[in-house]
C-alpha cells in the first residue's frame, strides 16, 4: 500500500519483556476490604523521591486485583532490562477518595525484601518474575531520621548495615524479623574504618523509636550471603553487649559499629 522505505530505517528501542507478578497479604486488608491496594515499582526505595517526583522515579503504579489480591505487571514498554534492580512495594490507601492513591501518612505499606541480605532492591530477569508475597504490615509515618557513625574495622569485603527494633534474641540473620528492620544500607570495606549514613524508613514504627540496634554483617567469605563464616558487628557503649539507641526525628550521630 505504501512503500516501506517511507518508514525509515533504524533500530527499534530495546524491549525488555519483563513481567513482575505476585500477591499481597496483611491483616489490614481484612480491616479495610474496600480500600484500594496499589503496587508500585520504582528505581530506588527513596520514598521522598517517589512522593516529590513520581513521574521520574516510578516504573509502574497499578491496582492489585481485589478478588485475588494478586498482581501481574507487564513492563515490556517501561525500558526495564534484565539485570536492573527495582524497589517493589504495595500499599493500601486509606485516604479520602478525592485524591489519587498514594502512600501517605496513615496508610499501610509492605515491600519486597531479600530474606538473606535484607536488600529491598529486586534484580529482574527476563520473562516472568514471580516474587514472594508482599506483606502489608507497616503503617506509614511522617518523619525524617537517619543514623551516622563509623564502622570500626580493618576487614575487607561487602557489609550489610541495618537498624533493627529489638528485642534481639539471636544474631543469626535467619532469626531476624524482617518487619523490625527499619533501615538498611550496604558498604564496601577496604581495610580501614568507613563512615556510614543509614536512613531510617518511616514505616512500621513512629518516632521516637526505642530499643533500636545498629547491626552489621561482614561478608568475610565474599559470597554475598550471610552464613557462619561472616562476622557480626554492632553498636555498643559497653562491650561486648550491643547497645540500643533511640531514634528521633533528625540525625543521630556517632553511632559507631564494632566487631568483636
Amino acid at each position: 500500500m505504501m512503500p516501506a522505505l517511507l518508514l525509515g530505517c533504524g533500530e527499534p528501542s530495546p524491549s525488555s519483556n519483563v513481567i513482575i507478578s505476585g500477591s499481597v497479604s496483611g491483616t489490614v486488608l481484612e480491616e479495610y476490604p474496600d480500600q484500594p491496594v496499589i503496587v508500585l515499582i520504582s528505581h530506588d526505595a527513596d520514598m521522598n523521591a517517589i512522593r516529590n517526583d513520581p513521574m521520574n522515579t516510578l516504573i509502574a503504579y497499578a491496582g492489585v486485583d481485589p478478588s485475588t489480591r494478586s498482581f501481574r505487571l507487564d513492563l515490556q514498554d517501561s525500558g526495564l532490562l534484565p539485570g536492573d534492580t527495582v524497589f517493589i512495594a504495595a500499599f493500601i490507601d486509606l485516604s479520602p477518595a478525592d485524591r489519587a492513591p498514594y502512600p501517605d501518612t496513615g496508610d499501610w505499606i509492605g515491600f519486597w525484601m531479600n530474606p538473606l541480605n535484607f536488600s529491598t532492591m529486586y534484580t529482574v530477569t527476563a520473562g516472568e518474575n514471580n516474587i514472594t508475597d508482599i506483606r502489608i504490615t507497616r503503617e506509614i509515618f511522617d518523619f525524617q531520621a537517619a543514623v551516622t557513625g563509623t564502622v570500626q574495622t580493618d576487614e575487607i569485603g561487602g557489609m550489610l548495615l541495618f537498624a533493627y527494633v529489638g528485642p534481639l534474641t539471636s544474631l543469626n540473620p535467619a532469626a531476624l524479623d524482617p518487619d523490625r528492620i527499619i533501615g538498611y544500607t550496604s558498604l564496601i570495606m577496604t581495610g580501614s574504618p568507613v563512615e556510614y549514613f543509614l536512613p531510617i524508613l518511616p514505616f512500621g514504627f513512629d518516632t521516637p523509636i526505642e530499643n533500636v540496634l545498629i547491626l552489621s554483617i561482614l561478608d568475610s567469605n565474599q559470597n554475598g550471603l550471610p552464613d557462619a563464616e561472616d562476622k557480626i558487628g554492632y553498636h555498643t557503649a559497653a562491650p561486648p553487649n550491643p547497645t540500643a539507641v533511640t531514634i528521633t526525628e533528625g540525625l543521630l550521630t556517632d553511632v559507631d559499629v564494632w566487631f568483636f
Partner: protein
Amino acid sequence: MRLPAYSTAILILIFLCAVTGVTPLQVSLAAQESAVSQTDPEEEASEELSEETEEESDESSLLQYNGFIEFQSFLNTYRDQDFSDAAKKNELRSRFESRYGEDNLHLFVAADLFYQFQSWKDDEEKDYRYAHDSRVKRNLRITSEDAEFAFNELYLNFGREGYRLRLGNQIFSWGTADGINATSYFNPYDLREFIFREDDEFRFGVPALSGMVFRNNYTVELVFVPVNIPMRLAPENNYWSIRQDEILYNLHFEETDGMDIKVRNFAYGARISSSLKGNDFSFSLYHGPDREPVLIPMAVEVRPNLPVNVNIEHRYYVVDYIGMDFSRTIDDFVVQAEVAYSPNKANIMEQDVPFMEVRFPYEVERSSYISYAVGFNYFIPLHHLLEDHEGESVFTFEWFQSRFLEAGVSQPYLFKNWLTFKYKDTFYHGHIPVALTTLIETDHGGIIFRPEIGWDFLNGMSVELSYAGISGKKEAGELVQNSYYNYRNNDMVMLTLRYEY
C-alpha cells in the same frame, strides 16, 4: 452581565423590522406580474409551447447534484512499530450534495458516507474507530465503529426576494479567519482526527431554524438551535485519542450526547453584516451551549494491573458571546480579523500541585474570556517572476489566541495560541496543486509541518500526497498534556485519491 432577558427581545425586534421593510417590495412585484399576463391568444399559444419546452428543462434543473468519491490512507511513520501496524487509516468516503427545487424553495442535502477498511484486524488491533458503539446522534449522524453516515446539511430552504428561511441541519460559517473561527458559535468541531479532517468534515451540522434578511446595505441572519450537538474527540484506543504515556495514570473520557433538550439550553444568535468603503464587517451575538465542553477531571478509578484511570467528563455550559469580524482588500492583500468575547465562559480551576496531591473533582468557575484571530492572505503576483505561471499563489498568515481573563482559571486546552503560515499554489496549467502549512503552538512549542502536492487530471480525478510532522514539548505538572505532545508520534504520510462528479 445577563444577556438572555433582553437579547431575545432585541433579536426578535431586528427580525420583525427587517421583514416589515421587505413587504412593500413584494406588493410591487405582484403588480408587475399582473401587467405581464395580459397578452393576445396567439402569443399565449406560442408562449405555452415554449413554456412546455422550458418545463422539461426546468424539471431537470430542479435537481442539481454533485459529489465525490474518495479513498484516503494514513501511514504512520513512527519507527518503533511493525510495518503492518503503520497503516492507520484506510477510509472510503462518498460525499453527495444535492439541491432539489427552485431558488426560492428547495431541499438541500450534503451527506457523507465513511467506511474504514480494517476488517482484517482484531478488535484489539483496531486503532481507527469512529465511535465505540453504533448510535444515531441528534443531528442524524449514524455512527458505528467502522462506518458513519452523516447529514451535516439537510434543510428546506424557503425564500423570497429580500429574505430566506431554512429549517434543518445547517452549518453556519460565521467569521473571516482561515483557521479557528471565534464567532462560529453554533457548529461544534469534529476533532476525531485532531485538525486533519477536511474543511467540509471539520464541523458538525446542527438542527436549526435560521432566517436571513437581505437589504441594500446589510444582511441580518438569525439562528435558533433547540438541540445541543456536542463536539467529538477520538474515542479511546484510537490513533487520535488523547492519551498519556504516564506511568501513574490513564485518561478516560466520558462522552456525552449533549445538554438536555430544554428551553434553557436552546441556542440562538444573530449576525448583521455590511460593507462600507471596501471594508466588510459583521457583528454577532450568541446565547446558548458553548461550542466546546469543559473537560473536567472528576475522579480516579483503581484498576487491577493497570494504571489508575482519571475519569474526565465532557460538560457543557450555557454561555453568552458578542463578536465581530472584519476583512478588507488592500491591493494584493486581504486583511482579516475576528474576535469574540464572553463574560461567562466556564472552565476548570488550576491545581498547581503534584499529581499525588490533586483533589477531584476539579472545580469549575466562570470567567471573562476572549478569543481572536488576525491575519492576511497575500495573493502573490508570481506571474511577474514566472511568466508562464497561471495558478493563484496565496500566502496566508494568521495568529489566533484565546484566553480566560480571571486568575486561577485554567487556560483553554484545545485551541490556545496558534500561528499559521500557509503557502498554496498550482502549477502546470492547474495540474499540480501544492501547499505548505506550518502551525506553531506558541505556549508549548508545538509544531505541525505539512507539505502537500498533488496531480489533478482535470477530469474529476485527482491524487494528493502529503506529510504531517508533529512535534511538541511536555509540560511538567499538567494532568492532561497539550495536543502537540500527545500526538508527537503521529507523524504520517497521507494519500488521497478522489473522483469528483
